[in-house]
């Protein structure tokens, strides 16, 4: 429930690691596909 505070990454700034970015993008993609499906299915069956 509570997000952990990420550790500071040093002077180069908050760079996302490719792996964590992949998880973030996957999660957003799953949700986006789901939301589009709800709307498209609902509209197609009207």
């Amino acid at each position: 429930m509570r997000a952990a505070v990420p550790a500071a990454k040093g002077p180069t700034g908050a760079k996302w690691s490719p792996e964590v970015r992949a998880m973030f993008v996957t999660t957003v993609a799953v949700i986006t596909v789901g939301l589009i499906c709800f709307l498209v299915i609902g509209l197609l069956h009207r």
Partner: protein
Amino acid sequence: MRRFIRDNSLSLFFLIAFLLALAGQSVAGNADVNARRLSEGSAPISWPTYVTSSDFAVDVAENWQSEYLQFLLFILVTVWLVQRGSPESKKPGEEGREGDAEQRIGRHALPGSPGWAKATGLRQTLYGNSLGLLMGVIFVLSWLGQSVAGNAAYNERQLAQLQDPVSWAGYVVSADFWNRSLQNWQSELLAVLSMVVFSVYLRQRGSPESKPVGASHDTTGTGG
């Protein structure tokens, strides 16, 4: 690969569990619909037909919207409200949006702070509220999806019973829409209440959602 799995095991667990549960729901839901259709004298429908039906879409969407509403409320309400002793809460006296120094934004940003936290103006405001904003957008879109898919599913039943279909505007004030919404909301709100209150006195060793086992019941906002 092994490092990827180790570093992302929490996300991967929930992603895989979500996909399995959704697949299970689709199979059980298809069987349930077909049992009802057979009892009504209609032909059963295939799994691909069911997973692209408004019946399946509304059942999934109504649960999504309630989950995102739960997290949206939890994220926002905990800014201003506290529960003494709960690891999910800030300490009494820390209510509110906090100062720039505490939030490490603008000129108080650290070298490792995200770029938009170092910025000022609209970018900082957007980034400073991005978690709640995203949860809120997903909640609204899921709820909209529930209303559109629910309207279609409701009208299919109406037409099958030789009743008049209702418009979207008529559906969003219908008993069916609010029964679906509120039955999910009540369970989510009870679950949050339980988490906030039970975690004052009860512990789960090693979980960041719990206080350390030896922490006092008065300790607020400390994961362990």
